[in-house]
């Protein structure tokens, strides 16, 4: 009878699945709610993410929106949705268009020939106040926390961001500089402030930010999200060695936590699986300024576990892999260095 019941439930489930409109395209509204509304809000009012104003959407091409969704804004809170299908990205763009009643603007992909040196002078005079000297839009930080100035009507765009530059063609930059962006407070420079050739010079300078960007080194094909090492010592000695080595490397060690602690009563917890948690507050502070969401992988921890056969393992997250989940090259570079520190610590422990 249980088998019959399972089969009937299975049949009902299959019927439900097959009767769904699986051939219809993805629902842009649903995708928007799931992936975008956390930051841009349900109606696009903005908050953590920039407002998706109708006037702004009317100023950009579908291609710009598609690339922005795909590439995100590395180093900022906007992730790059590389794993979405083209159909899903297109569905979100269609949804934005329908909701705003706007249409795509056609921009040429042709580079504009301006003089970046002259553009730099003009940029310093007219643009630095909001976009900052490095184009980052008012200093470091991702916009998630108070690390950024929040007194602007909206946060000034990071126009040196690689995701932005790869999404916006020169002609779009020219148009935005000339016409401004009224809803976000950006003035129009095309009337009596800058000539057409001066605007082209500024475009050339903004484009030159691309050359100042470093690219994070890729991962090796066989790289794993975790390192697992066998300890030549017994469990207690390994724990002691880890703590000594971390202290030597200037990390502050937090009270131990057993892996199962808090998940089951204290008498049933496996005491041979322990997480040695540690931190260097100074380093962490610098990292949180770069990436406030780091909490999802904190604190740094080395897990020491004794297996049934007595073998003691050290389990350490591979920071090279973890840092690349954040779409933030600056963090990647810092964590690649930190990974070397971790390797040295483990070498010392397992020596």
């Amino acid at each position, binding site marked *: 009878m*249980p*088998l019959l019941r*399972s*089969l009937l439930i*299975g049949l009902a489930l299959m019927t439900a*699945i097959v009767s*769904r409109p*699986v051939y219809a395209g*993805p629902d842009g509204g*649903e995708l928007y709610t*799931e*992936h975008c*509304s*956390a*930051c841009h809000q349900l109606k696009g009012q903005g*908050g*953590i993410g920039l407002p998706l104003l109708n006037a702004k959407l009317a100023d950009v091409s579908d291609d710009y929106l598609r690339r922005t969704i795909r590439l*995100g804004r590395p180093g900022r809170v906007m*992730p790059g*949705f590389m*794993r*979405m299908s083209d159909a899903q990205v297109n569905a979100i763009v269609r949804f934005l268009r329908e909701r705003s009643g706007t249409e795509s603007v056609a921009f040429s992909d042709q580079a504009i020939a301006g003089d970046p040196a002259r553009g730099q002078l003009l940029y310093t005079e007219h643009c630095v106040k909001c976009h900052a000297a490095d184009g980052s839009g008012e200093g470091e930080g991702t916009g*998630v*926390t*108070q*690390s950024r100035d929040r007194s602007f009507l909206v946060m000034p765009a990071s126009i040196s961001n690689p995701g932005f530059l790869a999404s916006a063609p020169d002609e779009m930059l020219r148009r935005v500089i000339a016409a401004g962006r009224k809803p976000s407070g950006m003035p129009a420079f095309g009337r009596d402030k800058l000539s057409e050739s001066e605007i082209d010079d500024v475009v050339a300078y903004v484009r030159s930010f691309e050359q100042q960007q470093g690219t994070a080194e890729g991962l090796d094909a066989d790289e*794993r*999200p*975790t*390192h*697992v090492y066998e300890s030549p010592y017994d469990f207690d000695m390994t724990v002691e060695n880890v703590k000594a080595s971390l202290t030597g490397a200037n990390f*502050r060690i937090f009270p131990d936590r057993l*892996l*199962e*602690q*808090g*998940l*089951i009563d204290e008498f049933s917890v*496996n005491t041979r*699986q322990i997480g040695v948690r540690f*931190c260097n*507050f100074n380093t962490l*502070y610098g990292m*949180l*300024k770069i990436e406030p*969401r*780091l*909490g*999802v*992988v*904190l*604190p740094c*921890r080395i*897990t020491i576990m004794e*297996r049934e056969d007595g073998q003691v393992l050290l*389990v350490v*997250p591979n920071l090279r892999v973890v840092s690349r*989940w*954040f*779409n933030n090259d600056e963090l990647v570079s810092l964590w690649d260095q930190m990974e070397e520190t971790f390797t040295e610590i483990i070498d010392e422990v397992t020596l």
Partner: protein
Amino acid sequence: MSSRAFRALSLIILLLFSTTAAADNMVMGRVSLRGEIVLEYLTSSIEEHGYAIAHIQLCDGGMTDFGYKSDLYRVVFFGKIDEVRKISARYPELVAYLPLKIAVIAEKDETLLTVLDPDALAPFYRDRELRIQFARWKSDLMSIFEDVRRSTAGHRVAAD
């Protein structure tokens, strides 16, 4: 067919037909309420989904001396003992990512919930059992976030 195998098969079928997209590496939720209130809703939803709260860590505690500003920064650790035991026995390398954790970052009346998308680990494993586990976690996390969103919407209405 055992009921366990049937459930696994059902989940695979659902995943194959699902039109829901995987978020890229992070799942994020945003609520227009103070962090302390959101934290309460979050922990109760986590428990309603069958997880135990292992502990809640203050992330900003030691940071203020360095000038770090945050109205509230907590990390909620949670898990299911049977899952943790199974994974630590079969896939010890994954204990680095257990218990699961959600970061709660608040600024005035805005609170951001962030969690590592378990699917970010999927490309490293071909094991079907693990992929099902990642999908189940993802599904629970999405459901927890949705729960918090709905509950807090109710909270706002009540407050108004």
